[in-house]
């Protein structure tokens, strides 16, 4: 079945093409458009599901070896010869990865052929399922939410195009295909944010999103060039196997791998909205809510995590960049969480929450827990898509009102939305056993116990505080939206319908029309599905602390499922080193002999590796104080230590929720009191720390100034030079013309005049009119000439 995976991205594209091209001409009904869109995505989901099943568990199971569809591939860009100018151009270090031959690249030069081929492996299979699965829920939801929009066909055409791009991104087998998807989702994001293009705000937001992403793409593109120049190929299997052989660049050593990782990180920051490139995501909420759920929560923004995990071997070769990733992630997590506390637009809160959660995922990758990062991507996709759709349902029910100050008490009117939303709330707060708990707890535990980078304790601390903030602002959101007094009655007329507000007698009847209502079935069914996933979805990555220190479920456990693609810096191999974890044919893959062979014991291997790569030893020494180890030395066992951290994370989640309840349910006046007390902080948070204003001033305005300056320079100096030389030429020609007229011509005329005046009597005298005279003159002249000739020859 997995041979048909190339259909997975193409089906939504076909749907998009049909809707986009014919939807308008033939005036398709909403049912037809929705049917085509949902049908193609559903089919994609089914194919993905069966493909992943047969890949992992079926008779022809290939897990954990990547399956690349070279049979159906075509050579997309036959780019020609490439010289490996960076790196060593030495492929002898390349190691075999999961059954793939070490590398097909030989020698310092190679032909670069960018293949168009799909890759099915542990990582892409998870993303395929998330994208098509969560995508399907959102598509179904959108058929209800977008009902009655004039651009219904256009919306689903863009959405289909988005699915195609996103699936290309996660299924492509090389960096360039990832880039195609990368830019493609950027375009779709642009189109969908700007869906309400007559709103200036939406148009601006879409442009901002695209250009901010372009900055990230710039780094990504350079990283791709670096990869090609280093490894002579853009194919993951080639790159990954060669990269594993490079020495690890420890803190303070900035080398090739660090450069590539930096470029990739810039790209990831752009797409996954990490500080300082996060500015576009909150603005992107100007798009329709299903778009926010699909693109700006569940799928596109997690592309950065996909990239980080895909290239984890490169990142792990640069300890500096790992630290950067962890710190950027941690900073973004707390930074966005503090902004989320004060926002009043329900979607803005969710947007900042998304930025913050993405920060958590980056944090996980930075501390070396790539698998957990992806696990959080998955759980986040469930609960954040749920909450976005829930907010969409609320907005729909509230007749397009997004301000939480005008909501409240909605649980009575929208029971299903409310119940499902509660699931998402508990999940994101990290309450056991909801999905978010498992992933977030693992992230914090990995931060505390990391041996990849120093400052793990700081990252843990920031993460823990951010988790508290998360629980707080999410409780605030739920409280302001679903609980408390029904503020919509108060605000309705004052704000939106000022004209009506004057006619008090009509007010009551008008109210009834605007009472919030539960959304139609097409909208609440996806909510229920997602709520179930958000509740139980975390069990695929159940913490070892709950299972007696063992990772249960083998392939069904996401940690084990993904492990083979993660490079292990201790062994230099992919996947964990412990014996018996994988089927015997999966690891080691280099036969029985050699340093990585099966006959070499772990200790010997360790020794060989430490000789081969002395930097590894340093890497360990540099990580400094380790919080988990410190705690472990107090409490004894590792499991006990993990329990300590589990309890801490549950406590902080509880504290966040408790504070939220105190501020927004028990004594609502407290919120205003504290806002007044901490006015500077409140203002800073409310205004998003003025980052947008700063960028607007420092970058946008300055670029515009530069454009003005360049044009002024162009017209004044460069073109001025051209026109100046033309002017100079004209001037010269005038002068020479004048000189010609007055000087040269004058002189000629003067001489002529002189000659005429002087000679005229003589000449006149000669003009006798007698032929004889003329003949005489001629003869005399001839004689003189002859005479001169004779004189000369003498």
């Amino acid at each position, binding site marked *: 079945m997995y041979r048909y995976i190339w259909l997975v991205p193409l089906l939504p594209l076909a749907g998009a093409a049909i809707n986009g091209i014919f939807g*308008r001409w033939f005036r398709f009904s909403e049912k037809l458009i929705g049917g085509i869109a949902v049908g193609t995505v559903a089919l994609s989901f089914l194919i993905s599901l069966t493909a992943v099943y047969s890949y992992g568990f079926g008779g022809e199971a290939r897990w954990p070896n990547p399956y690349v569809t070279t049979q159906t591939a*075509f*050579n*997309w*860009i*036959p*780019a*020609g*010869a*490439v*010289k490996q*100018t*960076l790196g060593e151009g030495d492929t002898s270090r390349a190691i075999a990865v999961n059954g793939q031959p070490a590398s097909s690249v030989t*020698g*310092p*030069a*190679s*032909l*670069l052929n960018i293949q168009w081929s799909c890759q099915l492996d542990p990582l892409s299979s998870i993303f395929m399922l998330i994208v098509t699965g969560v995508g399907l829920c959102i598509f179904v939801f959108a058929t209800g939410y977008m009902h009655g929009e004039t651009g219904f066909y256009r919306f689903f055409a863009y959405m289909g195009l988005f699915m195609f791009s996103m699936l290309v991104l996660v299924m492509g087998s090389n960096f*360039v295909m990832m*880039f*195609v998807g990368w*830019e*493609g989702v950027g*375009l779709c994001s*642009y189109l969908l944010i*700007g869906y309400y*293009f*007559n709103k*200036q705000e939406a*148009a*601006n937001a*879409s*442009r901002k999103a*695209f*250009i901010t992403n*372009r*900055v990230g793409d*710039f780094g990504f*593109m*350079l990283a791709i*060039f*670096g990869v*090609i*120049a280093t490894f002579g190929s853009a194919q993951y299997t080639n790159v990954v196997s060669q990269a594993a052989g490079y020495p690890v660049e420890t803190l303070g050593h900035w080398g090739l791998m660090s450069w590539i990782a930096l470029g990739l990180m810039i790209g990831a920051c752009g797409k996954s909205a990490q500080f300082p490139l996060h500015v576009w995501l909150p603005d992107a909420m100007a798009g329709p809510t299903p778009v926010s759920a699909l693109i700006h929560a569940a799928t596109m923004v997690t592309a950065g995590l996909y990239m980080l995990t895909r290239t984890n071997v490169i990142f792990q070769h640069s300890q500096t960049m790992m630290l950067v990733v962890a710190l950027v992630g941690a900073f973004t997590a707390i930074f966005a969480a503090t902004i989320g506390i004060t926002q009043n637009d329900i979607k803005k809160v969710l947007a900042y929450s998304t930025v913050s959660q993405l920060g958590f995922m980056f944090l996980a990758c930075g501390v070396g827990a790539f698998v957990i990062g992806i696990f959080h991507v998955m759980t986040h996709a469930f609960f954040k898509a749920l909450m976005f759709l829930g907010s969409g349902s609320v907005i729909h029910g509230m007749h397009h009102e997004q301000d939480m100050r005008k909501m409240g008490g909605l649980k009575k009117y929208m029971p299903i939305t409310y119940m499902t939303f509660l699931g998402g709330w508990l999940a994101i707060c990290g309450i056991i056993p909801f999905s978010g708990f498992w992933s977030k707890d693992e992230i914090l535990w990995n931060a505390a116990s990391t041996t990849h980078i120093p400052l793990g304790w700081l990252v843990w601390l920031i993460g823990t505080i951010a988790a508290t903030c998360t629980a707080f602002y999410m409780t605030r959101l739920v409280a302001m939206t679903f609980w408390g007094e029904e503020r919509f009655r108060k605000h309705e007329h004052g704000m939106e319908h000022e004209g009506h507000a004057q006619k008090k007698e009509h007010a009551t009847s008008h109210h009834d029309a605007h009472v919030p209502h539960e959304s139609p079935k097409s909208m609440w069914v996806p909510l229920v599905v997602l709520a179930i996933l958000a509740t139980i979805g975390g069990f695929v990555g159940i913490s070892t602390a709950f299972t007696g220190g063992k990772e249960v479920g083998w392939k069904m456990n996401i940690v084990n499922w993904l492990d083979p693609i993660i490079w292990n810096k201790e062994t230099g191999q992919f996947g964990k080193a412990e014996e018996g974890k994988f089927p015997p044919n999966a690891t080691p893959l280099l036969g029985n002999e050699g340093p990585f062979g099966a006959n070499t014991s772990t200790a010997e291997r360790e020794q060989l590796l430490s000789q081969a790569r002395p930097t590894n030893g340093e890497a360990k020494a540099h990580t400094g104080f380790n919080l988990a180890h410190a705690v472990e030395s107090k409490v004894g066992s590792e499991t006990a230590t993990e329990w300590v951290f589990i309890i801490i994370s549950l406590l902080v989640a509880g504290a966040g929720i408790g504070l939220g309840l105190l501020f927004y349910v028990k004594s609502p006046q407290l919120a205003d009191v504290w806002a007044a007390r901490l006015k500077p902080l409140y203002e800073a948070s409310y205004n998003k720390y003025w980052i947008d204003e700063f960028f607007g001033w420092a970058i946008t305005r300055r*670029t*515009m100034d*530069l*454009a*003005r300056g*360049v*044009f002024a320079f*162009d017209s004044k100096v*460069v*073109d001025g*030079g*051209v026109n100046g030389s*033309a002017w100079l030429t004209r001037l010269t020609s005038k002068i020479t013309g004048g000189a010609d007229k007055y000087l040269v011509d004058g002189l000629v005329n003067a001489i002529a005049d002189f000659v005429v005046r002087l000679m005229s009597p003589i000449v006149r005298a000669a003009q006798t009119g007698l032929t004889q005279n003329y003949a005489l003159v001629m003869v005399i002249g001839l004689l003189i000439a002859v005479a001169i000739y004779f004189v000369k020859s003498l």
Partner: protein
Amino acid sequence: MFTNNILSIITWLPVVGAILILGAFKKDQNALIKKFATAWLALDFVISLWLFGYDRRTGGMQFLEDHQWISAIGARYQMGADGVSVLLIILTTFLGVLAALSSWKYIQKREKEDYVLLLLLQTMVLGVFSSMDLFLFYLFFEVSLVPMYFLIVIWGGENRLYAAIKFFLYTLVGSVVMLLGVLKMYFLTQDLAITTKVSQATIGLLAGNDNALRMVNSTVQAATQSGTGSFNIVYMQAIGSVIPMGTLQVLLFFAFALGFAIKVPMWPFHTWLPDAHVEAPTAGSVILAGILLKLGTYGFYRFNLPMFPKASMDEVFFGKFGVRSIMIFLAIISIIYGALAAMYFVVKKDGDVKKLVAYSSVSSMGIVMLGLFALNPNGLNGAVMQMINHGIYSGALFLLVGIIYERRHTRKVSEFGGLSHVMPGYAAVFLAMAMTAIGLPLLAVFISEFLAMRGAFEANPVWAGWAGLGIILNAGYMLWLYQRMFFGEIENEKNKSLLDLSGREWVYMMPLVIMSLWIGIYPGPFLRYIEKPVNAAVRAIRPNYPIPGQPPPATTSAPTITTTSAPVQIKTQP
């Protein structure tokens, strides 16, 4: 007859059409004239498709033609095309049809002359791409200015006289300097000190295949017998490549480079371009941006690189700055400067859309130059593809601007806004082309930008970094332009009743959209046409560049004669 003279047929057919129009049609038969001219150009396009039969395995110069011409100076009527020329010729005939179609309504006066000039222009440009004789090349190169000059002067905008004269004189200045270089090269073909160094292997590499090699050799022999020099381009390339590195090589390089750099146009020789574009009629702009600019980059590809490889490779001639460093510097400046200058026209309240596109051309052609002077297969591939792609997208954007100009008689950004509401088809095509322009993957320009920048990265990662900066700016002004023109509510009353694309407009826009998609999704066929010529060009400059499957030739690196075959000699005049 047909296959042996295919290049001549393609080149001269438009002139025949022009003569037919002049002779057979009366001045008031406008409807008939435009249909005839368009059909005639379409016929030329169809015939030019024959060139896709170019043998990609063999490579080199094909479709050769060789006739006696001006024997007194050894100039011959020689035609030939390699993969790059083939693509450019087909692009020319392709855009020619679209340009004619777009003139149907735009041109309202003296229509007969307009189509005659368009046809003449086609011949001149096609001649440039198919010449294998430098004298012939130069003739076409120069004469192509004349029809363009008249197109601007007669059908141009308000300031047309200034723009036309500027265009004419500016490019003429460059060509005159180039003429000096051409003459010097001609005399060098008679210089025994140089000609004896030329090896048969070098000529073989440059000619690319046996037929072409045979033709070059017979040309050289004929020249030797008649005691003249030779203008054969391949031979001149071989001559140039053995000129020792020094003042002569560098001066010759710059003599040619100036002529081409003005045509490209590279910063700081670009200021004629925005003026010419703004004043030119739509068809003129399309041909100007789509094809005439390519004359410059084609010149660099055909002459500067293989003819002066030592100068091209030189990175340290004037102390720190070498020739290559200068060219790359100018290319990068063009990319960023062009983008910023283009941005000015959206920053400015009432910027001219056409000027924006013109400046974006400067930026785009900078990418071509960057790719060319990366001097590696990726870079050259990217550069050649960018020539084609720029022809497609800038041609399309000028056509789109022309469409809105026909309706509103203004090109000011501030006059528009919310056009998506009334012209959804137009908005969609414009979006496709804007996205092509900013290099979105799966659209044409991505392929070329990716390759050119990758080539530049291979040469020096910093160059690619600077070029990438320009690409961010490109996205900035294009999207902003799109937003200002198409998003928001319609505020200008005049825009409320605008008509969407007509059938004829769809007919000439759709091929461009399809081509953009085709090259973006499946560029393989095109890249295969230029693979051999590009590799040969790289080898001509860097004999030891590793190309898998093609071991470096043993001899071309040394300028002395080490091959077994006898050196080609030309008797110098007494």
